[in-house]
């Protein structure tokens, strides 16, 4: 019974992260990863970026953008490792590494955004 609600919990994080990743990440990668570095669009200035990041709403947005997709990754990646490599016996290790990574990333995001000043 305990295990069952755990799976529901992780699946909820997985699907919430999947929605966030699907709707938000493509435009972010397009802008910051391709359009600005390649000069397709004028890159925003440091001041503009700081002004945005100082807004509490933007910080919450960025926190969600960083944390939920990490839990999405953790869920998919652990099943891909189980199934793709047939390493179900390493279940606990993989589980810890994936969700551990997601928690570390979430804490880092929280720390960075909290101390953005």
């Amino acid at each position, binding site marked *: 019974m305990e295990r069952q609600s755990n799976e529901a919990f992780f699946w909820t994080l997985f*699907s919430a992260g999947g929605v966030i990743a699907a709707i938000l990440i493509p435009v972010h990668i397009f802008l910051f990863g391709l359009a600005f570095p390649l000069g397709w669009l004028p890159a925003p200035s440091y001041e503009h970026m700081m002004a945005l990041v100082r807004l509490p709403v933007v910080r919450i947005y960025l926190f969600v953008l960083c944390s939920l997709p990490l839990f999405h990754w953790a869920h998919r990646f652990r099943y891909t490792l189980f199934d793709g490599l047939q390493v179900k016996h390493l279940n606990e290790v993989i589980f810890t590494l994936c969700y551990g990574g997601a928690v570390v990333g979430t804490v880092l995001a929280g720390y960075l955004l909290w101390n953005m000043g």
Partner: protein
Amino acid sequence: MADKIILEVARYSPERDAKPSFQSYEVPVYKEWVVLDALNYIKDQVDGSLTYRWSCRMGICGSCGMMVNGEPKLTCATFLSSYAHNGSKVRVEPLRYFPVVRDLVTELSDFLVKLTKVKPWLIRHDEPPLTQGEFLQTPDQLDRYKQFSMCINCTLCYAACPVVGLDPVFVGPAAIALAQRYNMDSRDQGTEERTAVLAHPEGIWGCTFVGECTRVCPKHVDPAGAIQQYKLKAALDWVKSFVMPGEHKSKDVRSEAAND
């Protein structure tokens, strides 16, 4: 269209062989012939030792499922002519991931055990007296589960699902879809009883939504959809129990299934 085609058929004799091998047979191709007709031709005219299951030859008994060129198919509904172009061969193997008894015959008891585990029958907690008449259902209520009730237990979805092969304890697509067929039935009160088997790492949470079960299903049952819908519901129930801890989770699972 070629008038002859080579059928490469997997042969396995438990008394003789350590593992299956392929045997080729040349069979005639007629427009109206399905793969099963070719197998029957081999059995009747060429090699009587070839062993396989079939019965109705009209896509309803679910016993002639085999791998045809690597795809799980009902051989009675797969036309030979669609493979018969420029010297191509047709490879016929037993359904993937199942133990093989002989030639093209798979062992199904594991599937049958899983199927009974999800209690695919109407469960009632109260039995109203017969004088109250039958349980009436509106067309809407019928429509909710009708799709899942089309399953013929042909096990093509098991042969399509990599999780079935990788994780032998996984309950599997057809069994979960059939459980949903009864969960969605307005006459049923057994949702709670099935939850123990379904909302479990070996049940719905084992599924990684490859979606192949739905693609190969000859009856358009959509087991993958059934499983994801159950996951979503279990997740929402979990969120609900989190937001409103007072309410008992399994109770509203049942009343919801009965009401909507």
